């Protein structure tokens, strides 16, 4: 026991003597950007999606010499901190980036849970924070002053595909069955499907939530027996892939499969091959969109090409949203003409600049709401319905946003 004490003592003294670096305000001529996202753990897949978006922003900015402020260019450096997919680690990660690394601002995590743990820390240290991915409406209800988001809340996004099915296809389907996976994001998506289905006059035959990791066959069988016209599902990529496999096995043939999110990821397309065809989803951005931007990437096509050159994959909207988060900071910095390292006045000015921001990027309009239930969430985008046609995602609605007519109804599995 004596030895135990001695060891504890020496560990404590060691901790005591750990050099306390990074507290002084240093001089530097580049912007230090903290990134907190999930690089390991359950959400590592999504974390990598955001990381790619942030990386592409930083690399492109640096290739052009940096962010131009009053004629001088300042490069950006990203400092990553893994949140291990848990809220507690997200808080430690933020604390580390802010107090040890002295970052100027923060690009936020993939998931909503980790974002909700990070936001109060950003609030405490008064550090601007934009998440390029989190879609949970809960974040915006809390009205965090220092937290912004480039992707509209999932409750808005999910409506687009239901609206398309209500207005742009004939014969108009009548019934819908909805399944959600029991995590915060997927459940919101499922609820949004349900709300907009009721609004559009569909009859909701079944609304069910299943825990992540269970076998979805019984649910598909139960829904199949009800013969719904539309099957809508809120989930992440893994469940989305498994669901289509099960639907095919069980010969479940609704007139339309609607999924959010997951169907936009490359793994969905690669894993399912031809079976991905006809699946409908929603997105706020696709590489085919016609936005004309003044900043960084001129249009979605240029972004998609840069993305493919760097990562060898097609980009999807979460990648784009993450890159746009960087662009929002870039533009706001230019507006307030702040030089690195940012002082506290600079950071507060940055917040006001972000609130006033209204720019057109390759990702579309970025304009943060300054009141209401979606406080500080991007209000400039219109969600579109998308569908796999010939192995590619195309916009099929709603209304004027349609580029190609939706293929409807989905042929049964044996006639494909």
């Amino acid at each position, binding site marked *: 026991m004596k030895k135990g004490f001695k060891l504890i003592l020496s560990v404590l003294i060691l901790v005591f003597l750990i050099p306390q670096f990074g507290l002084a305000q240093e001089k530097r001529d580049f912007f230090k950007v903290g990134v907190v996202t999930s690089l390991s753990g359950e959400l590592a897949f999504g974390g990598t999606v955001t990381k790619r978006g942030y990386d592409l922003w930083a690399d492109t900015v640096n290739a052009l010499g940096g962010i131009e402020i009053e004629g001088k260019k300042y490069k950006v450096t990203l400092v990553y901190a893994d949140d291990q997919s848990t809220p507690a680690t997200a808080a430690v990660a933020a604390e580390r980036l802010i107090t040890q690394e002295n970052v100027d601002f923060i690009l936020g995590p993939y998931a909503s849970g980790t974002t909700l743990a990070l936001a109060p820390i950003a609030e405490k240290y008064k550090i601007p924070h934009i998440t390029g991915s989190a879609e949970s409406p809960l974040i915006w209800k809390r009205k965090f002053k220092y937290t912004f988001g480039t992707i509209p809340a999932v409750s808005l996004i999910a409506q687009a595909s239901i609206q398309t099915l209500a207005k742009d296809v004939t014969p108009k389907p009548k019934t819908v069955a909805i*399944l959600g996976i029991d995590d915060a994001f997927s459940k919101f998506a499922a609820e949004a499907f349900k709300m907009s289905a009721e609004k559009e006059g569909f009859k909701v035959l079944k609304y069910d939530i*299943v825990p992540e990791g269970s076998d979805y*066959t019984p649910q598909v*069988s*139960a829904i199949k*027996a009800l013969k719904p016209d539309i099957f809508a599902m809120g989930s992440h990529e893994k469940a989305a892939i*498994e669901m289509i496999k099960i639907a095919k*096995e069980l010969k479940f043939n609704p007139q339309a499969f609607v999924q959010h999110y997951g169907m936009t990821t490359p*793994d969905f397309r690669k*894993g399912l091959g031809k079976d991905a065809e006809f699946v409908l989803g929603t997105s706020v951005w696709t590489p085919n969109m016609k936005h004309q931007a003044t900043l960084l990437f001129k249009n979605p096509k240029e972004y998609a090409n840069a993305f493919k050159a760097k990562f060898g994959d097609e980009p999807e909207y979460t990648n784009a949203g993450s890159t746009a988060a960087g662009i929002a900071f870039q533009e706001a910095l230019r507006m307030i003409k702040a030089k690195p390292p940012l002082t506290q006045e600079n950071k507060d000015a940055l917040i006001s600049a972000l609130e006033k921001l209204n720019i057109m990027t390759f990702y579309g309009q970025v304009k943060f709401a300054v009141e209401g239930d979606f406080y500080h969430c991007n209000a400039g985008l219109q969600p579109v319905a998308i569908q796999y046609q010939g192995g590619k995602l195309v916009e099929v609605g709603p209304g004027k946003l349609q580029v190609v007519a939706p293929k409807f109804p989905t042929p049964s599995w044996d006639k494909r």
Partner: protein
Amino acid sequence: MELFLQTLIDGLLIGGLIIVVGIGFSLCFGVMHIVDFAVGEWVMLGAFTGFLLVSYFGQDPMIYLPVLFIIFFVLGWAIYPLIYRAISGKRHNPVLMGLVFTFGLSILAKGGALSIWGYHIQSITTWLSGKSLALGPITIPALRFSGFLFGILITLLLMFFLYKTKLGITIRATAQDREMASLLGTDVRKVGALVYSLYAGVTGMSGILIGALFSIHAAMGVKYCTLAFFVVVLAGMGYIPGVIIAGLILGLLQSFVGVYVGGRYNLVALFMVMYGVLLITPKGILRRGI
């Protein structure tokens, strides 16, 4: 009525998959008293190995089943000395040692898989994928059905081996009384190695089946760990024939709760049943466990 029959079939087929994962685990627990936390990781590694074999050599994934069995049998044989060391000798609490050691192994395997193969979700397809048999209004997915048959077949083979061959009888004797068996000249350590390798081989082999049905990623193992625990508890720990009945019951439970009660109560029901069974009859529903 149609839905009822379909639910029944779904349940039986889910049960078949649970049998595949639970059978090796039950053997491993029954003979060596090891609760292997890494059971799900064997499934995951099997799925990834199958995926690699398919992407290098092509062909249908199902023909690699025997190859996978051999690979994982050898792997199990190689790892066993470590496990034997962890649970034997002057250890305070062999159960805890085994649990913690295999817990370490599972973190190691998960971390390794993440570092090597990354986060992507892989899929493999066989010629059975997406096909199904129609039986009137009932649909029987072909791949799941073959998984079911596979599970039953493996169980029967193992039972034949354990009850009809000399080696098998030695293994059962060891399971019943380790000291006595060792006095009668059985090399307990070798028997253990054989059992562990069999377990690793069977479980790794099932990975490719599960990978084809669902999807392959580094964290896929956890849920099979849960299922393996369930089935072994319900069957009575170490009682091999019970695994079939327990697997089917669990499959039916999931299926019927999912359809008639609500999907969200799916897992709660499973855990409640498992907890309840342990309290009421720790030796399993057939009261035949050790």
